[in-house]
């Protein structure tokens, strides 16, 4: 017994020493700018830049394979200081983007085909018989987006649909990937109008499965004074070049599927 424990300890010690020695002999010289940049980055490893984490992002920056601005999380002062290390000039104007949950299929509104009692994970829920919600476009409400958010910016609302805290959201897009139904999108914060339903369904089907669904009626497209809306697959598609943010579409929508952003006079009623 003692002998076995000792032998294993010696083995472990040998392997450990071997590794320690190897790491010194085989050490790879790193560009010191990589470390300097990494220190300034937020360190959340959220992956918004498209790299595995802050370390690989800093490596890519030094190698010239990435843009400083790809980090949506850092504020403009941090980005400027990183650009300084790299000896680059960057233009920091540009719109802030936030995640938008494009479903209002709350427990009350959306019909359910069966009760889901599996793992609390949206991807898992989506795989059980095509999801428990009658709407195949709707939020499954298991909170996978809440789980992956590195900034605690998403919370599960009381009615089973997540809510984004726009002040905390950095637009990293982790939630977009976590959502098996493509309900979440990272959109410019100051966009005139947000569409809050993804159901490509006609009026009759939509009414049957969710009382909050976009009916695909096309009223918004017909009433838009700027002709900025066309209907595609029973959903409105906006041309934000033409849109002047008048809000007519939001007012006429019989299903309340549209929401204005704060800058464009959102009265907060339709939010969520």
């Amino acid at each position, binding site marked *: 017994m003692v002998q076995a424990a000792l032998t294993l300890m010696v083995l472990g010690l040998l392997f450990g020493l071997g590794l320690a020695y190897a790491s010194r002999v085989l050490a790879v010289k790193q560009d010191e700018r990589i470390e300097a940049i990494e220190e300034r980055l937020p360190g959340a490893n959220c992956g918004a830049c498209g790299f595995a984490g802050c370390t690989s992002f800093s490596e890519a920056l030094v190698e010239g394979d990435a843009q400083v601005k790809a980090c949506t999380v850092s504020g403009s002062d941090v980005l400027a200081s990183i650009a300084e290390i790299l000896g680059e000039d960057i233009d920091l104007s540009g719109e802030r983007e936030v995640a938008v949950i494009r479903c209002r299929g709350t427990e009350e509104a959306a019909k359910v085909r069966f009760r889901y009692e599996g793992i609390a994970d949206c991807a898992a829920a989506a*795989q059980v*018989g095509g999801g428990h919600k009658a709407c195949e476009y709707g939020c499954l409400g298991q909170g996978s987006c809440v789980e992956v958010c590195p900034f605690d910016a998403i919370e599960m609302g009381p009615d089973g649909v997540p809510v984004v805290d726009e002040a905390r959201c950095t637009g990293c897009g982790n939630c977009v990937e976590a959502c098996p139904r493509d309900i979440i999108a990272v959109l410019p914060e100051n966009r005139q109008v947000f569409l809050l339903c993804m159901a490509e369904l006609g009026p009759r089907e939509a009414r049957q499965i969710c009382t909050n669904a976009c009916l695909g009626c096309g009223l918004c497209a017909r009433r838009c004074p700027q002709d900025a809306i066309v209907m595609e697959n029973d959903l409105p598609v906006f041309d934000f070049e033409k849109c002047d943010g008048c809000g007519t579409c939001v007012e006429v929508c019989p299903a309340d599927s549209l929401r204005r952003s704060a800058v464009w006079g959102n009265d907060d009623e339709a939010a969520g």
Partner: protein
Amino acid sequence: MASELIVIFVGAALINNVVLMQFLGICPLLGVSRTLSMAKGMGAAVIFVMAISSMVTWGLQHYVLEPMSIEYMQTVAFILVIATLVQFVEMVMLRYSPALYRALGVYLPLITTNCAIMGVALLNIRDNYGFIETVSHAVGSGLGFILAIILFAGIRERLERADVPAPMRGTPIALVVAALLSMAFMGFAGFGVADMFGL
């Protein structure tokens, strides 16, 4: 001697395929097989670590554990070896072949927890293989793993575009595919390798 090695090699790669017949290393088979390139990377890393770890664990068993008659510490000692080896291989690759290191990426550390590596190391001992036989068995098993994961990844890539019924999409159809592949490999069972090569 040579004929025996071929029998072990072909047996490990096809007849007793680690993944499809012995059901070892199922996690990477399902987890890292979404694209063909990922599967190739994982396969290359596995065969490499499998060969080296089999040699080292064989030595450890016969020159350390057996003389001290503490064979019951096999599992712990082997895990120690595999974990150390993976770390070491990572360092060597980073130093001498950064391109390969980047290509294998996260799959390299993942091998630490690949049960196929551990399984092959233990099978070498159970079947009383000599050193050369151990190498042959490990490389054969590694090739078997590559074969399985690449076949599986190829099928899955096509499945992406196939019209699968909604409830079967994703994991369910992947499991069905794995089962069918495994059944196909059962066709090798009872195959006389020695007769096949006229040995």
